[in-house]
């Protein structure tokens, strides 16, 4: 977990320790300072004051470039999950420069969880949204999410698949076109529902209501908006195929929509990670 001295420090730490109790075994707090000011005392004091750290934990103090050092630590420790606090919305300058959380998302080789609304007392992830896009990584992501949902005792899971609109599913200028459009949509919906059902086959989690939604809309954007509308607390996504760069920010697409306006906590599951996050 990457930490710094901020108003949400305690809440972030609490959140992290709570998640660790449920999911993991060991937590490492990483603090990277610029070497000028010594915040070690202050932070250590605050974290210890939380007092409820039931899991094994350690502190790491580093100096240098924040993002790269945190990533280094992740690799050294072979971490399963990196936890970072993030601002839900970024300003214009931040948007193009990129916050630390963003840099981490772009370069990380392990799964990453961005906490947007840490609470001082335990919050339950009762409603989770996961992407269901037709992609080789998706299967792994969905199964991981099911594990997490079971561990966190979530009660509702939405699998959301975004279908980018094309000629057949978007054009509805008159009655004929509208009829054709809705026919196409139903065909696609049926097909995709079936595909997701197949990938869910064999997994049974009691007390978890799973619903699949097929949304025709801009990929990357729609799922974020859906998360916001449905009031879910956690959004789970595949890791990006390519490392995102500056150009992606100028021509916003896919993941960038969500990163620039986080609708909820965001978990990005890294499929190539050897061991899994959330055992």
């Amino acid at each position: 977990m990457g930490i710094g001295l901020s108003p949400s420090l305690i809440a972030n730490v609490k959140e992290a320790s709570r998640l660790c109790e449920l999911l993991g075994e060991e937590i490492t707090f990483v603090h990277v300072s610029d070497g000028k000011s010594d915040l070690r005392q202050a932070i250590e004091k605050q974290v210890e004051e939380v007092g409820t750290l039931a899991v094994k934990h350690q502190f790491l103090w580093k100096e240098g470039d924040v993002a790269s050092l945190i990533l280094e630590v992740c690799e050294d420790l072979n971490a399963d999950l990196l936890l970072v606090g993030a601002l839900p919305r970024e300003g214009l300058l931040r948007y193009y420069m990129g916050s630390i959380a963003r840099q981490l998302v772009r370069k990380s080789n392990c799964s990453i969880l961005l906490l947007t609304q840490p609470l001082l007392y335990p919050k339950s992830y009762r409603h989770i949204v996961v992407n269901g896009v037709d992609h080789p990584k998706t299967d792994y992501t969905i199964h991981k999410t099911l594990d997490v949902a079971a561990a966190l005792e979530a009660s509702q899971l939405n699998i959301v698949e975004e279908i980018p609109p094309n000629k057949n599913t978007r054009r509805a200028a008159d009655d004929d076109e509208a009829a054709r459009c809705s026919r196409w949509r139903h065909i696609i919906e049926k097909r995709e529902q079936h595909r997701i059902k197949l990938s869910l086959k064999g997994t049974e989690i009691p007390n978890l209501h799973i619903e699949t939604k097929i949304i025709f809309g801009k990929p990357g954007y729609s799922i974020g908006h859906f998360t916001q509308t449905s009031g879910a607390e956690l959004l789970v996504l595949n890791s990006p195929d390519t490392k995102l760069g500056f150009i992606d920010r100028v021509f916003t697409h896919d993941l960038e929509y969500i990163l620039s306006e986080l609708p909820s906590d965001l978990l990005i599951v890294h499929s190539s990670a050897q061991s899994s996050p959330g055992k």
Partner: protein
Amino acid sequence: MISKPQQIAQNLQSGLVVSLVALPLSFGLALASGVPPMAGIIATVAGAIFFFLFGSSRLIIAGPGNGLVVLSLYAVGVLGQGDAFLGYQLLLGAIFTSGVFILLMGLFRFGVLSELFPAAAIRGMLAAIGLIILSRQLHILLGVNPESSGAFQLLAEIPHTVHLIRIGESPVAAYALGIVSLILLFILPNIKLWIFQKIPAPIWVLALGIAYTYLAPHFGNWPQLADEKLINLPANIQDAFVWPSFGAWTNGSFWTISLSLAFIAAVESLLSVKAIDKLDPEQRRSNANKDLRALGLATMASSMVGGLNVVAVIARSSVNLNNGASNAYSNLFHGLFLALFLALFSTQLEHIPLAVLAAILVHTGYKLTAPSQFRAMKELGRDELILFILTYLITLLSNLIIGILSGMLITLVYQLITLGKGTYFFRTLFRPNVLLFEEQSHKYHLSVKSMSNFLNYIRLKTQIDTVEPEAELILDFSLAHYVDHSVLEHVQQYRNRFETAGGSLEIIGLDDLYPSSSHPLSNRKPRGEKRDQKGKLSKRQKLLRLYAAEHNYRFSHYEVVEYAEFKAFEYFKSKFIHLLRNRLEPPDKSWLWTDIHFEDNDFYGNALRHASMLYVPLPKKTAPFVLDQERLLDRVAHLAGFKDINFELHPDFSQRFKLKGEQVKEIRSFFNGGLISFLEGQKQYHIECNGDALLIFSKERVATVSEIKQMVNFAEQLTEVLKK
């Protein structure tokens, strides 16, 4: 297409009536455009045939349009440089090119073009066109050819024209006929006689004009009308056909003129098509792109033989509709009738006085720019009125294109200023902001985020279009910060379409945005601090007020911050309640329905939520519990640890509902009674009890009016059951 003979008769009849209206208009519009009168007839016939063959709208009438009069007249002057006939030929070349542009617009699906402009700007431009036509034709009506161009100069010239009449420069018959015709045009539609209601006023006026010119020579003491004040038709029909000339294609203004023609023709047509679609009793939807293609082809064909631009026109189309047209044949018939008239009665038609045609045009111009237009805009709020007037003035002072583009720009700047967050405005404007998903089968939820205005309305439109109108659509603006009038006006039309098709479209989430006037479709922006909120209710609030009045409930839309009773529920333990709005309560206060605005308790406070909930106090104290559908989520973390309480005698109830609580015994006794059988027969709600009262809701969002009625019914019956 035609199946019943009765339908053929209907469309034949309406085609006939429309052709009679179109006849003077075609002549008049062509003359006003500075081209021979036959150009208008050619455009009408070409429009009728080509639009019938390739168009999609069934009720629209295609022909020469008002909007292009100003531009065509200007083009004849500029391109011809004094030579009227050369100007006409070059204009035909420009019209042909504009036809190609319109065809391309149709092929590249520019049918949404008309949706891109703010409603106030479009209306301002049309009103300006009306004034320009009116100011010019007023002189011709009085029998004088004006010298200046430009609306203001023309209006300033009126005293000069009056002076000319005084000194006898203008024949008495001309201006007398003109003035009488104008008065008749205003009066006749208001006379509640069958014959004046059925046969439109322009036909009466035309008949009057022709009758007068026939009769006058027989009565020496009547003022006579010189031939130059009558319409001049070519003696030979072949002479009417003029080939276009493309000699000016190297000239820059040729291209600007063709582009402007194409743009204005397209916008005017699209607006007309949309307006007629709105009036269609069968609520059929036209394909704007297909219509544009048809108009492009029609315009090209028309210009090849000397006709004007073909435009879908609203006035003639509504005459068409009023006379019982039901399909595209009436448009075809109207063109054929017109051709027939010309072939049969060409000598009689020569007797139409110009003053009568001018009167008809003055009347159409007046309708476009009448004070009622300004009043309508004023009702939408002062801001809309100002935008309208600014567009209007700029159009009059410059030209149509500059007028509408600056109207767009001004609207944008205005919205930017009222919202007050510049970077936010531009950041959100060009990003996707709509989400459509199927909540249940045939029930859709369309959520709109951040800014919703005329520029990104197209995104909303494409999504609404894909929903079948038989379905239920909930349009949720609760995540939006600004909704402008153009969007609400479009949405209003969709509501009509949904309702006629048997579906429904309900808007929620507008209550939080402050309307800028009492009009239901006025701009919605974030609530200001000071202004009073009296009488400015959203449609949903009005419906609720009505509903409350019907059932003798108390309704108040004011915001209240007394929410202690809600705070006492576990559900709200970890949440911050902002305020309650829209309270609905019976006189005995046995329940309370309200919209609650709350926040999930967090550091950044951006998770504002809205939900409609019911509060029902219990007659007797009991143990706390939570009751929900078996499959639904545990909304209260605190009670999650308890076991589901089942009733052996009610296996069905136990299976469907999840009941949790600490004091099992007490809860059992509370439920044993009429309660279980009552709940079994009802829609399932999430019910939470804190010992003293019940908290009831179904979804964690604001409920629609019909959902509220269900909730209230539930509460009424529940209180009855609880009393026992």
